[in-house]
């Protein structure tokens, strides 16, 4: 009996079952590690390729940006702008008298003739079915509550007040007209 425990005993003889189990364990471990390693390797490779592709794309973009910048500088050089201005805009240098340093220097525009705009405002207002077509005399109309004698409107107590305020959603035809409108609304 003692001889059994004595060394060396052939490992094959000693514990065949245990060996099989450990072999299996190592086999699984090796194949798992191998698989994982290759998976990581190919993953890295494909990432590197993607990185390279991206870097190349960035370089191409950078180059394109550089040429675009130069082209922009070429297309917007003062000489060209001057020439284009002469052809399309005819803007001149700012004269000294056009420059005002503080807002108080800007003179207020005299009150514009709002009355001339009034009939148009009236027309632009609610499409009144029963209202008579605007007559030229209505130039003084907006102040008088005669014209839009809609029952519904009359029912509103504030109707007259609303009329007195010249709400002018009409598009101004010129800058001067716009300023006149703003001035009138004050």
């Amino acid at each position, binding site marked *: *009996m003692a*001889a*059994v425990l*004595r060394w*060396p*005993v*052939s490992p094959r*003889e000693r514990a065949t079952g245990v060996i099989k189990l450990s072999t299996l364990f190592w086999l699984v471990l090796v194949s798992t590690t191998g698989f994982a390693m290759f998976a990581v390797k190919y993953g890295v490779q494909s990432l*590197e390729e993607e*990185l*390279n592709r991206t*870097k*190349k794309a960035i*370089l191409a973009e*950078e*180059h394109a940006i*550089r*040429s675009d*910048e*130069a*082209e*922009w*500088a*070429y297309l*917007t*050089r*003062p*000489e060209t702008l*001057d020439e284009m201005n002469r052809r399309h805009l005819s803007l001149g*240098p*700012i*004269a*000294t008298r056009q*420059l005002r*340093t503080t807002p108080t220097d800007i003179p207020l525009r005299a009150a514009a003739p709002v009355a001339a705009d009034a009939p148009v405002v009236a027309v632009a207002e609610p499409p009144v079915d029963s209202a008579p077509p605007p007559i030229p005399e209505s130039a003084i109309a907006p102040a008088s509550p005669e014209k839009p004698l809609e029952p519904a409107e009359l029912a509103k107590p504030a109707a007259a007040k609303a009329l007195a305020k010249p709400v002018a959603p009409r598009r101004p035809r010129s800058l001067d007209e716009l300023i006149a409108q703003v001035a009138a609304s004050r």
Partner: protein
Amino acid sequence: MTIAAQRFDENPCRPRHFKPPPCVAIVPDGPAKQALDACRTRLFVTGGLFALVFAVVALRVVEIVAVGGGTAESQIGRFRIVTAPVPSHANIVDRNGNVLAATLDSPSLYANPKQIVDAGDATRKLVKVFPNLGAAEVYAKLTSGKSFVWIKRHLTPAEQYSVNQLGVPGLEFEREERRVYPDAALMSHVVGYTGIDNAGFAGVERALDGVLKERREPLQLSLDLRLQYILHEELQRVIDDFTAKGGAGLIMDVNSGEILAMASLPDFDPNHPAAPDPEHPAISLADRMFDRNTLGVYELGSIFKIFTVAMALDAGTSTISSTYDASHPITIGRFTISDYHGKHRVLSVPEILMYSSNIGAARMAVAAGAERQRQFLARLGLLKTPKIEISEVAAPHYPAKWREVNVMTIAFGHGISVTPLSFATAASALVNGGILRQPTLVKLPAGPAPQGQQVISEKTSEQMRKLMRLVVEHGTGTMAAAPGYVVGGKTGTADKISGRHYAERKLLSSFVGVFPINDPKYLVLTMVDEPHPNRQSHGYATAGWTVAPATSRIIERVAPLLGVQPVDESSPEVQRALMVESLQGKRIEAY
């Protein structure tokens, strides 16, 4: 004891003649045991070594993953990663970021004739893309039998695209770089140009070549493209109006020394430096490449009188109310000094400057003395080569021995030649409170102005401002006035030297203007070489009729861009700030 033997015995698959070993395993003895022990030891050592190596590998893996992942990642870049073809030189931009010089990839087209299948077809296709190429020449190249021939250097991206579209095998591209100057001649003398391999040959390109090679960020100059255009245009206009040989000008920030615009005409296209000017083929290349602002030294004439007056006032040898007899010309040796705008009477210091009296200035300088004059000019940096970020700078010419006649002529700007750049730098110091600052072409960081050197007292500087205002208000420079911008300045009309004598008909007219003179911000120096009188100028080609009106136009155009607010020149504050005490109550003789 016999387990193993029994098992073999019982095994039905055992070989027929297999005899199980007789009994138990033999425990070796003696030499056999020793051999076995040795084996065992070796096995242990080898196994131990392997274990050690694997442990090191494992530890390293742990280190990379858990501890030093970042550093490991940084190592990736060394392998198989595309490296960026960085442009060899950084771009140059103006103070607002407009590109003045850019490095662009510009591929060159070459062919490998050995790979060209159908030379005739390839030639036909190539000539269609590049109409400038001769068909015969291209065909000869493609059938040369060599393995490398250039077809065309420096293609545009569009051309490269077209060649790729041809799909002709045997045509290849070589990556090359090219320096491009979008504004062509506008900045030519300042920015300069480059040769093959983008090496700087002139201007900033040459002086800062090393800097441009090192940086990736664009180099920002102090120049303003818009101002440069205005200056260039107005100078060209003066040259055309007065059929002059050339002109130069600069705009400088008097409080920082930054140069905002600097132009010299005629000029050249840095994209094709050697190409002749299509509009003026007669003008030589050397003349067009010559930067009059920094490389030209000139006897600037009467504008030098501001230095004479400043010197006398600062040294105390004259006061603002001193008077000098200018009724008769001075004769010294073979020279006679007379006045162009002669008044033939005793003149006060303000009048000497206003009417640009040579006699008066000469007498002032003599009163101050030669040594004082020389030292004063040296202090203003007028006796040494100016320092700036371009390499084309010239040293001034001045007499080695400062005799009395030299004192007199230098007082009104003859007998000493300086660059317009040196002049503008010194003139800035006269008006900005007396501080001389190094001129620069590179944009300075925002913040307080760089250190300077106090060259004249603040009081003298204030007096100079008032006197320069007088010149524009009532003196020779009235045409330089730009209402609202309170211009002060000085005219200068010099006779040019031809050979050993002064040529009467060859003038160099210049004007130095500062605005707003009550709170000086910018200096405009304009100079025109050999102007000829025209009908509008009533037969004059002096500074007051040529460059003074140009300065007025320049100031009116640039002031709004520089954010200088116009003021009412007749307002009491401005009047008080610029009042010259000695003239108070006296009538100024209208010129």
